[in-house]
C-alpha cells in the first residue's frame, strides 16, 4: 500500500510528455486511405446489388426453407464421403510435412547460404501463393478426376506454407547447443539432426497439425471442382436444388471440422 503510494507520487512528479501529433495524424491518414479504397472498390464489386437481398426475399426464403429441413436419409454415404475428405487432407498434409522439413531447413538463413535460401524461398513462395483450387484444377487435368488430384493440390500448397513456418522456427533456435555439437566434430547433417530438430520439433508438430485442420476444410472445397470427397457430392446436390440433402452434408461437415479442431487443439497442447 505504502509502496504503491510512493510509486504513484513518483509517477506524478515526472513531467508530462507532449502529445505526438505526427502519430495521430498517421492514424487518421490510415482510416482515410481505407475509406478511399472501399469507395474505389464499391462499383467493381457490384456492392449496389445489396438491395437484391431484400427485393428477392422470396427466393431467399425458399432457399433457406430447403436448408431448414435437412435430409439425413443417406447419412452413411455422406459420412463415407466425409471420411474420404479427411483422408485426402491426411495424405496431403503428411506429404507436405515430410517435404517441408528439407525445404524449411534449406530456406532458413541461419543454416543455409543465401544462394540456396533465396531460390528455395522463391519456389516455396510460388507453392504458397497459388491457391489449392488452382493446383487442384491442374491436377484434375493431369491425373484425372478424383481424390488423388486433391491430395496433390493440398500437398503442393501446404508444402509452401509449412516450409515457411518450419524455417521461421529454425531461425529462432538457440544456436549454442548446435555449436556444442559442432565442437564434437559432428557433420553438418548431424548438427541439424541433434542440435536443431529437437529444438523445433514441438513447433513443427503443432504447425503440421494446424495445417491438417485447415486442410480438412480446404479438401471439402476441392471436391467442388471434382477432386473427390464430400465437397463433390455437396456441389452436385446444390446444383440439383437438393437443398435438404446439401443441408445435411453441411451439418456433417460442420460437426466433423469442429471435432477435428478440438482434437488437434488438444494434441498441439501436448506438444508445446
Amino acid at each position, binding site marked *: 500500500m505504502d509502496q504503491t503510494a510512493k510509486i504513484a507520487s513518483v509517477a506524478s512528479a515526472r513531467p508530462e510528455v507532449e502529445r505526438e501529433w505526427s502519430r495521430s495524424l498517421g492514424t487518421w491518414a490510415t482510416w482515410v486511405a481505407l475509406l478511399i479504397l472501399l469507395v474505389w472498390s464499391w462499383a467493381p464489386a457490384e456492392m449496389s446489388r445489396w438491395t437484391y437481398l431484400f427485393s428477392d426475399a422470396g427466393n431467399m426464403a425458399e432457399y433457406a426453407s430447403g436448408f431448414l429441413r435437412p435430409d439425413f436419409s443417406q447419412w452413411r454415404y455422406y459420412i463415407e464421403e466425409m471420411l474420404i475428405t479427411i483422408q485426402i487432407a491426411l495424405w496431403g498434409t503428411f506429404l507436405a510435412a515430410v517435404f517441408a522439413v528439407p525445404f524449411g531447413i534449406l530456406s532458413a538463413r541461419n543454416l543455409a547460404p543465401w544462394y540456396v535460401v533465396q531460390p528455395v524461398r522463391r519456389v516455396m513462395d510460388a507453392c504458397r501463393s497459388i491457391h489449392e483450387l488452382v493446383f487442384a484444377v491442374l491436377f484434375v487435368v493431369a491425373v484425372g478426376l478424383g481424390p488423388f488430384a486433391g491430395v496433390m493440390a493440398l500437398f503442393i500448397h501446404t508444402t509452401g506454407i509449412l516450409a515457411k513456418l518450419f524455417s521461421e522456427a529454425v531461425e529462432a533456435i538457440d544456436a*549454442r*547447443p548446435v555449436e556444442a*555439437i*559442432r565442437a*564434437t*566434430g559432428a557433420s553438418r547433417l*548431424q548438427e541439424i539432426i541433434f542440435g536443431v530438430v529437437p*529444438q523445433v520439433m514441438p513447433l513443427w508438430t503443432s504447425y503440421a497439425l494446424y495445417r491438417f485442420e485447415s486442410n480438412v476444410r480446404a479438401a471439402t472445397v476441392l471436391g467442388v471442382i471434382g477432386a473427390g470427397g464430400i465437397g463433390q457430392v455437396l456441389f452436385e446436390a446444390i446444383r440439383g436444388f437438393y437443398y435438404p440433402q446439401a443441408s445435411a452434408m453441411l451439418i456433417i461437415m460442420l460437426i466433423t471440422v469442429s471435432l477435428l479442431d478440438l482434437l488437434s487443439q488438444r494434441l498441439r497442447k501436448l506438444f508445446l
Partner: protein
Amino acid sequence: MTAISVRNLSKSFGKKRALDDVSLEVQCGEMVALIGASGSGKSTLIRHICGLEIAQAGQSRIEVLGGAIQDGGRLAAKARDMRRNIGVVFQQFNLVGRMSVLSNVLLGNLGRIPMWRGTLGLFTAEEKKAAREALARVGIPEVAWQRASTLSGGQQQRAAIARTLIQRSNILLADEPIASLDPSSARRVMEILAAVNRDEKITCVVSLHQVEYARRYCARTIALRDGRIVFDGPSSELTNQMLIELYGDNSEELILPDAPVQTAKPKRMPKPGNVPAFA
C-alpha cells in the same frame, strides 16, 4: 609436444578489437588458466582455437596437436576432423535441452563413430555404458534419463564435461565453465577439470573470471587485457598487486571479495582507459 600454438591472431568485431596480435603456446598435459575482465578476449580466443570463429585474413595461424585448424583467416579443410580432438565446455553448458542427459553425453561420440551410425543416432551398448560411466565420473549418474533442461546449472555443466569425456579429446577448452554457477558447483566443476587433466593427461585451457580459481587449480595463467596478453607465467606469481597493476579498477572484477589480501596496501593505478587505446 605442443598442444596448442597460436600465432599473430587478431580479430575485430566491427570497430572493437577483440584480439590484438595474440601468440601463445600450450604444451601437452598443461592446465592453463585464461583470465581477464569481461570483454578482454578470453572467449574469442577459445572460440578461435576450436575453429568456431575464424580470424580475419592475415598472418595468423592456429595449430592444434601439430596440424593447422585455421591459417590466415581460413578454416582448414580438415577442421571438422580436428574438432574431435578438441573438447569444448561452454559457459551456458549448451546441452540440447529437450533430449535426455544420456543422449546428450552420447553426442560426444559423433566425431568418432562412422557417419551413418551417428546420423541415425545408433549408439552401441558399449558406447551407452561408457556414457553412463562418464556421468558417474562427474558425479551425476542418477540423472541419465532426465531431460537435460531439468538439471541445475552445476549438473548441466558436469553433463557437458561428461560429453567431452566421451569425445576422448586430447585437449579440453573450457570457456568460462563456472561463470554461471554457484560457488560450491563451481568448485566441483573445477575439481573435475583438474582431475581430468591429472588422470587422463588431457591438456586443459580454462578461461576464468576470478583469479582465485586460477591460483588454486592451474599451474600456469595467461592474462588478457583488451585483446592482448599482458601476463603469461606461473599462477603463483600473479599476486593481487600485479592484478591491480594490470587491470587497475577492473581488477575488482577478478579478485574474489573474500580472497586473502596479498598486498599490504592496494594502490590505485591509472585506469587502462586512460592509456591510448590499441585500436
